[in-house]
């Protein structure tokens, strides 16, 4: 047994000495041994699931391909109109004539049973980008449009709904002599139709008489002529920090059937952005005035009258809360950059509607205030989250894609 123990010890010692004999003699040898050891354990790089997923998204441009491809079918996701709810549906796009012209079409429906079919042929880049033109046609139905009555004294408790269906077929063209100035003209044939709306609320005809609501009883076809000018000096365009945008549009609605609803409208939209602290803070101001008038014996149908209320104008009020032929909207926001992709905003909205232009003024304005956050880049705001308070319409939480102005 002693012999066995001695043998074992001798073997162990021999092995140990052999091992130590392999200790590196130089720094280079030490490093070479570490590399030799690693060479026996090589594995291919293996990105994790999240990295693989993000790689696939980035390399495959999946967002662009799915949401906004230059060509082919894709799902259209978004809103049909304010208050229409989340909508989606198939869309198609096809570049033509060397990509200077595009054909596009879509058919989308919303959770509130709003739907829209739209097709258009658009050339944005004629004459080196100085001219643009399009022909278009669309058919839509909005079954749950809110209506509270006309005028500044409309009552919240008179909330009713109506359905609105129309087609629009027309053409537009314009000149862009410089990138920041556009003059355009547009002609559309319109076929509006008002219905009782869905069963989710009281129908307009249950509360309002046709005699008090122009256009409720009969809806003629129209030709709508529009001329507009747009000076856009915002920087950057998508999420402005300085500059301004000044737009004016004149519309003429030609009643083709009844001769009762011919009217004119002028919209003036002025926006100014005052930078503070190297553009990291911005005072954003907007004034919007719309006035419509008709000759004696003519009137403006209620469904073409401008409205106030909702996430884009008087944010402390329900959608379409106020409606009339003339409106004034004043908005002011203080926006501050929290970090690169997030801005905070404190806002104040004020406005009113009036049957006559001369009744628009700075007295008796409806108003609200609020606070919010905007997520996006210099190219645009992707998402807007806001709380609006201080109005007679209660508190409102707003979750909205895109900027307010």
């Amino acid at each position, binding site marked *: *047994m*002693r012999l*066995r*123990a*001695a043998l*074992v*010890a001798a073997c*162990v*010692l021999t092995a*140990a000495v052999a091992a*130590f004999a392999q*200790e*590196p*003699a*130089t*720094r*280079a040898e*030490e*490093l*070479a041994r570490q*590399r*030799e050891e*690693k*060479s026996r354990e*090589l*594995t*291919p*790089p293996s*990105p994790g699931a*999240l*990295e693989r997923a*993000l*790689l696939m*998204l*980035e*390399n*495959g*441009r*999946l967002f*662009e*391909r799915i949401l906004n*491809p*230059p*060509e*082919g079918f894709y799902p259209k996701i978004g809103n049909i109109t304010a208050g229409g709810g989340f909508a989606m549906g198939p869309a198609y796009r096809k570049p033509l004539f*060397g*990509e200077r012209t595009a054909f596009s079409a879509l058919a989308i429906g919303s959770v509130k049973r709003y739907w829209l079919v739209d097709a258009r042929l658009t050339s944005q880049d004629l004459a080196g980008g100085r001219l643009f033109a399009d022909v278009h046609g669309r058919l839509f139905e909005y079954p749950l449009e809110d209506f509270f009555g006309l005028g500044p004294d409309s009552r919240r408790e008179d909330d009713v709904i109506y359905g609105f269906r129309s087609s629009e077929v027309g053409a537009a063209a314009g000149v862009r002599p410089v990138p920041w100035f556009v003059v355009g003209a547009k002609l559309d044939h319109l076929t509006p139709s008002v219905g009782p709306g869905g069963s989710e609320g009281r129908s307009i005809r249950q509360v309002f008489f046709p005699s008090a609501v122009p256009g409720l009883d009969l809806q003629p076809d129209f030709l709508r002529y529009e001329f507009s000018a747009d000076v856009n000096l915002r920087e950057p365009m998508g999420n402005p920090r300085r500059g301004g945008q000044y737009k004016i549009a004149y519309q003429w609605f030609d009643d083709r059937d009844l001769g009762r609803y011919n009217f004119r409208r002028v919209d003036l939209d002025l926006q100014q952005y005052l930078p503070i*602290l*190297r553009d*990291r*803070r911005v005072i954003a101001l907007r004034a919007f005035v719309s006035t419509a008038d008709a000759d004696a014996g003519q009137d403006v149908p209620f469904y073409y009258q401008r409205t106030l209320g909702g996430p884009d104008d008087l944010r402390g009020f329900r959608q379409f809360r106020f409606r009339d032929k003339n409106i004034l909207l004043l908005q002011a926001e*203080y926006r*501050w*950059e*929290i*970090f*690169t*992709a*997030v801005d*905070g905003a404190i806002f104040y909205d004020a406005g009113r509607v009036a049957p006559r232009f001369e009744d628009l003024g700075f007295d008796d304005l409806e108003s609200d205030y609020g606070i919010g956050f905007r997520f996006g880049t210099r190219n645009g705001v992707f998402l807007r989250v806001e709380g609006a308070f201080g109005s007679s319409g209660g508190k409102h939480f707003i979750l909205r894609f895109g900027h307010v102005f």
Partner: protein
Amino acid sequence: MTYVVSAFRRTVAATAFVILAVAAGRGAGPRFYPDDPIQVDRDAQFDASAAKPIEGSNGYDFAENTFLNPGDRREIPAVNVNTMDEVPDSSWFTNRIGRRAMAIDEIVRGPNSMDTVAVDDWPVVRDKTSGITPGYRVTDPSGRLYQIKFDPPGNPEMASGAEVIGAAIYHALGYNVVEGYVVDIDPARIVIAPDATTVDMSGRRRPMRRSDIDRLLSRAAKLPNGKYRATASRFADGIPLGYFKYYGTRPDDPNDIHPHEHRRELRGSRVFAAWLNHDDSRGLNSLDMLEGPAGARHVRHYMFDFGSIMGSGSVFAQVPRAGNEYILEWTPALKTLVTFGLFVRPWILVDYPEVAPSVGRFESEFFDPAEWRPEYPNPAFDLMRPDDAFWAARLVAKFSDEALKAIVTKARYTDPAASDYITRTLIARRDKVLRTWLTGVNPIVEPQLSAAGVLTFENAAVNAGIATAPTGYVLTWSRFDNATDAAVGPSEEQRVTGPRADAPPAILKGSNYVSVTIQTTHAGFPGWNAPAVVYFRQGAAGWQPVGISRK
């Protein structure tokens, strides 16, 4: 039986004890090997043919580095330095300006093998696959591939100027950098190869058309003569393997054994990035290339894409945040949030002189090297220690005013005011870098011990002109046992007023190794009193400095 067993156990136990005792002694190893300090780390020894390309995701890279703190976060010294605290040459780094005097012409030429290239009529073979700068790829008559990148319309000459200046400086510092040239491209002489392809917005690769080139040129700066200025970067030799991360090692490269976050040249590149405002210094702007013949391939690591340095943001003038704050930095963001913007980040108030569009936003007055930040956290930058920064700052100090002026001429700025301003700003930022990082440790360098026993050394901060001479040095001499890594025998202390002393003969006599601990006395830099220990080895050629450690 009990006895026998007991004897067996005793024998084995005794053997084990002997082994452990020897192992313990051997485990520490000698402090210095005979080949220390190594000047070259031969990290191309093992065949890396099995290495596979790595694709990088911008989103993942941002998220990982912003939220996950990847890498080994131990605050340990750099692991790839030699015993003299220097970076040996490797597939990552080749000592150039730090090891030898470089002529200004050589610095300016940088990685380029030619004076210039003319890319007109070179066929476009495909689109540019990464980055936001408009561009494409062409081949020269010999088939070499080049990447063309254009300047943004609002800032002609800006990105291309930044690219060649950055390449020249990073090359002189020691990094692997691809060749890059400023070129003027005649749009009428852009030729599309028959098999050229591009990826359209739908993600499909299709034949490239002239309209693709025209669309791309619409996002590029047009010169008064109708040409477009661009950078032509020549692709490196070898097989592209994607990028390297600033932490960990490539699992498929046998030669890559040092965690990148602990590599001195990657930690120290924070200093260079701060100097040049290279806020885009991230893994995705690096390049690994597989080089060498089949069966003996190795990976070479490149720094890549300097179009976003100084005042350039590649496709626009650099944003004011760049270099001052990460894209997402919680503390200032929360302060701004809760104060409704009344808290104003100091960098917002910085005035950038309006010199020329080619300058972009670049300044030196507000610049604080220690507070400088890249776009998002970089593990190697996070782990940079004062000794890493000191190493890097010594390299920065090698760039003279004349050298920087000459480098800037490479950008061929049309406006002399742009050249002058960029040169002055680089010099001013260099001086701030030196004041910050050349003084962070006891700056003893270049120790020598003559055969006659005379010790000399230098003070890097004094040499750079950013500090006055110290009032004195305290030297503590010892014999040094290399096997046990410990001083042995009595020590002897000296106080001298200059960087020169006679070593005690009793210490030197019969010694193979001696150490001298140097503490520097300077009223302006009390931290210099921290000891720097220098080790000398007696060899055939006399005493050789073999190691230095700074506390």
